[in-house]
Each structure stands twice: as structure tokens, then as C-alpha cells.
């Protein structure tokens, strides 16, 4: 252990490695608590840095009390029922719905990328435009989006599509191009048709990498989704955060942000597991 402690050849044991990996979390939380404590001592009504207890209460209310506007769902029934009437669940549902729509809309993007990479005429038609489109900062085009898609769900989903699909298309395109030409030739000699080659030879083997690329873009998807919800909406996690910001409701905002992080982590984990299940032969190179 003592030899080459900080060197490439170091072999940390399980326990120290575990401790090290959590140390930054501990430092961060400790720092926060320290600052929050100091600020609360200075000002008992402090709202910018809520204490753990305040955040717990805020989250408890968010998870078990109905959103302010539908009071008919009073605080009765079992915990599960109450959770399903709560502000948190309502917001999560709205945001997830938009999230799922936009993920579904990524499927055509993958197919387009594949075709662009394989069929020269499709590539000639789309490539230059997608390259250009990829550099457009979608958020600055909002007024045009409103005119084209209204201000409802469609505009929010389109914002994500415009923001994220070019990246996915180009990524799929590059992955398709990276498939050795010999394989295509071989597939053709073995009697495969054009679409057999496209879907059963090329798509099949780039799929795990495409999934990875989507996984890495989850954060952009969420960023655009949040931007859309903050601009105009009546529900959603970002809508609530935007609203709470107006009166410094940090005791709910911080747990909300952590909740979003957890959900994103779970989606990411799910996709990783799915990838491994679907493509057990795939080794990350």
C-alpha cells in the first residue's frame, strides 16, 4: 500500500475506495449544513438555505398534500391514495409524459441517421442540413416555435426534439459510417438485401452504442424540457420550481432538484441494464 500510493499502479482496497468515493458527498453536505446553520443563527427566518428538517417537511407536504388548486382531493384515504393526489406526483406525471413523448420521437431520429449513413442519396439530401441545424440554439427560436406549435404540449416536445435530435442523428450517422465496408460486402455476397443489411447487420451492431449516446443526452433532454416548462405551463416539476422561486421556497426546490436527479439516475440505470440484457455480446471498448 505504501509503495506507489498515488501512482497508476496503486491498488486501493475496498474500504478506502468506498470511503474515498463518498468523501466529496460528505464534504458537500457538511459544508451546506455549516453555512445553513450559520445563516439560521444570524436570521431565524432564513429561507435561502433551509435546514434538513425544513426540507423534510417541505417534501412531506409536497408528497402527501394535494396541489393547491384541486382541494376536492382532501387529505383522506391511505398513504398511497394521498400520494397519488399530491403535488409531487402530479408534477412528476406531467413531466414524465413529456419526457416519454420526446424519447419516442428519438426513434425516427436514429432511423434517419442510419439511412443517412448507408444510402448515399439520403445522406446527400439530409447531411448538410442536419449539420447546420445541429448548430442552432433552439432556445433562441422560441417565438417561432410558439407560432408553429402553439404554447401547449406540442411546443415543449418540439423544443426537445429540435434541441436533441440533430445530435442523435449525427451520432447514429457516424456510428453507421464506422461499420467496416467489408461487412456490408459480405452481407450482400451472402444474399442479403439492402434493408436486411441496414436493419439486421448495421443497426443491430450499432444499437448498443446508439443507446449509450441517448443515455449521454438525457441531461440535454431534461434541460430543454425544464426550459419549456418554465416558459409556459400549468404543471410539471420545472413549473413548480419556477413558481416556488418566486417566493424563495427553497425548502421544496432543493428536494425537488434531488428528486429529479434520482429519477434521471434511475432512467439512466434502466437503460444501462436494458442495454446489457439486449446486447450481452457488447463490450464497451
Amino acid at each position, binding site marked *: 500500500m505504501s509503495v506507489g500510493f498515488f501512482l497508476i499502479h496503486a491498488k486501493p482496497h475496498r474500504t478506502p475506495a468506498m470511503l474515498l468515493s463518498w468523501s466529496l458527498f460528505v464534504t458537500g453536505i457538511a459544508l451546506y449544513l455549516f453555512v445553513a446553520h450559520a445563516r439560521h443563527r444570524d436570521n431565524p427566518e432564513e*429561507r*435561502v438555505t433551509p435546514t434538513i428538517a425544513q426540507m423534510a417537511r417541505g417534501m412531506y*407536504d409536497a408528497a402527501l398534500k394535494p396541489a393547491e388548486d384541486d382541494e376536492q382531493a382532501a387529505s383522506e384515504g391511505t398513504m398511497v391514495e394521498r400520494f397519488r393526489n399530491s403535488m409531487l406526483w402530479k408534477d412528476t406525471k406531467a413531466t414524465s409524459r413529456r419526457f416519454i413523448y420526446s424519447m419516442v420521437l428519438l426513434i425516427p431520429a436514429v432511423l434517419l441517421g442510419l439511412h443517412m449513413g448507408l444510402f448515399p442519396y439520403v445522406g446527400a439530401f439530409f447531411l448538410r442540413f442536419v449539420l447546420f441545424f445541429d448548430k442552432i440554439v433552439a432556445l433562441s427560436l422560441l*417565438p417561432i416555435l410558439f407560432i408553429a406549435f402553439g*404554447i401547449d404540449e406540442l411546443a415543449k416536445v418540439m423544443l426537445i426534439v429540435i434541441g436533441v435530435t440533430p445530435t442523435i442523428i449525427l451520432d447514429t450517422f457516424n456510428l453507421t459510417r464506422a461499420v467496416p465496408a467489408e461487412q456490408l460486402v459480405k452481407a450482400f455476397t451472402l444474399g442479403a438485401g439492402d434493408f436486411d443489411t441496414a436493419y439486421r447487420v448495421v443497426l443491430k451492431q450499432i444499437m448498443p452504442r446508439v443507446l449509450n449516446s441517448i443515455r449521454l443526452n438525457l441531461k440535454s433532454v431534461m434541460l430543454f424540457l425544464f426550459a419549456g416548462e418554465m416558459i*409556459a405551463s400549468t404543471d410539471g416539476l420545472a413549473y413548480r420550481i*419556477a*413558481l416556488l422561486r418566486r417566493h424563495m*421556497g427553497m425548502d421544496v426546490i432543493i428536494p425537488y432538484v434531488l428528486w429529479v436527479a434520482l429519477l434521471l439516475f434511475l432512467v439512466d440505470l434502466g437503460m444501462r441494464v436494458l442495454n446489457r440484457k439486449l446486447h450481452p455480446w457488447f463490450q464497451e471498448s
Partner: protein
Amino acid sequence: MLRRLSLLLLLAVTGFAQKASFTVGWSVYAGWTPYYYLNKAGILKKWADKYGINIKVQRFDYAPSLDAFVAKNIDACTMTNMEALDMPASSGVPTTSILIGDYSNGNDALLVRNGLQMKDLPGKKLLLVEKTVSEYLFDRALTINGMRDQIKKVRLINTSDSDIATAFISDTSASATVTWKPMVSQILKQKGITSLFNSSQIPGEILDLTVVRTDVLAKPDGQKFAKALAGAWYEVLGLMSAKSPGTDKVLAGIAEGSQDTLDSYKEQLSTTKMFYTPQSAVGFGSSPELKQKMDLVRQFCFDHGLLGANTKSVDDVAIRYPDGSVQGKGDRVRLVFDLSYMQMAVGGKL
């Protein structure tokens, strides 16, 4: 050489250290843009020098300026009476209003499409920035028209102020919007849009203030800061309201602060009741009206949970008025209306 340089540096540093430094934040609004001119024309510097302090002026977007003030990053800030109450005051940052600049006299408006009437609003989509003065105006509009019980039936859609004009113009499924100038002027230029209600029907309820943290005022240098601000403020307001050939140049200089034209700025001023003289501001500040209007505002804030989830009673965030009376619990005064700096301006004692 090196020694001389470091000596100079030392002198410079101590020179700065001796002068107390303060920051005032402002955001774009007809009644606040004078701060841009105040700074640019060197008027504020003149007054700061008179009191031997440094004053920095910083432009913000509105919401971040409030955040900065609550976080105590800046010492003074422009905000409405409602935000003064529900942001700093209710977050335990005692706040004092030292200048009553103006009230919105038509700047905020409820606009509708296709000649709708007030009674048609329930069930319709209405765009606005929720939990702000816009929602207050909407609340008051329906209350005054005897439709208080219908408020919840209007479908409010929270829309960011930077996009609300295009969103309302392009989405015809939204029947109404509540917003403020210059967006109001922009939307009214479209065909078929009429104004149902505006802030001139609730005069003096949406006040635009310059506030200072109360703990800053407790220090002697803080007093100097407030005096310098008041001095510079009324000097510029005097220039704005003077009937002389140079006035337009001053107004154009102010309009430049929001990338606006002189005409557009004048149009906005026409629906802003500026208290150009300290006398008029003191007159309004000491009238019983102020208490009645603030009572409406604080009730609204409390009903909408803007005073914080832990605030159990509207009286927990108390307001003290110039005559010494307190609205709310006496030991929980968080917002103070202080007329003394404006009174000094009246008496020429700044």
C-alpha cells in the same frame, strides 16, 4: 522603483478601505430606469462624494435582483411593495422603503381577445406570470367586478415575462393575458385585442419603491448611503419633469438604459404616476390610503402562500408606517416605510 510602486498600491488600497462602499441594484421598468441615468451622468457619484462614500449601480433582471437583495449581496434595490413584502421581509431580511418612486397607473393590464367581457373569463385560458403583481391585478379585477368566487375557474397558465407577448399573440387558444408595459403596448398593437382592466383602476396599490436593508441603515455610513441616493434621485426626477428644452435629452438618456426610444419611454411614463417631487411622495406616504392598500396586498400575499409555508398568520410579517402605527404583530416588524429621507429632500437638508 518597486518600493515606490508598492507604496502607491498600499495607499490606493487604504484609500479604498476608508471609504464605505454600497451597491444599489435596479431592473428595467419605466419608474426605475432613472437609475441608469443617475449613474451614467455622474449625478450619483457627485452625491456619493459629498457624503464620502462609494456607490455602485448594478443592473439585474427583476427576479435575480430580488434574490441578490435577499441574499444580502446588494444593499439597496428597486422593487414593488408586494415583492418587498413577500421576498425580503418574509424571509427575515428586515427592509426599509426609503423612496416611493411611483405607482403603476395603467402599466399593468388585463387584455382579452375578440371583445370578451369580464363575465366570459371563467373556463378560459389566461397567460400571466403567476404569483406576481400580475396575479394580484387579476385577483383585484375580478373582485371589483363581483366575481371573486369565479377566480379559480379561470385557467391560469404560468408564462415567462420574456415570452409572454409572442406566446399570447401567436397562440389564439389563449383568450386573455395579464402583463405589463412594454409587453402590453406590443400586444395592443394587434387587431382584436382590448384592455378590460388596468392598474389605473386600482391607483396606488402597485407601488415602485427603492428599498434598503434595515441593518444597513442602522450604521452611520448606511444613513449617508440613503441620503446620497435620495439626493441623486430627486435631482434626476427634477430634470425629468422640468419643462425645458433639455428635458427630452434627459428622457432619451434614461430610455437608453432599457434600449428604448424616447417616444416609447414617454408613452410608458404616461401610465406611470411618478412622484416627481419629494412633497408628493411624502404626501402619499403619510396618507391613510397607503395602509388600506398595503392591507389588500398583504392579504393577497398571505392567501397565496407567498409569505412562506411557515408563516401561520398574516400578522407575522408586520409593516410599520411613518406615523408609528404597525400592521401586524409589533415584535415582528419586517417592512418599514420611512419618509425621513424624502422629507430631508423636501427641506433641502440633503
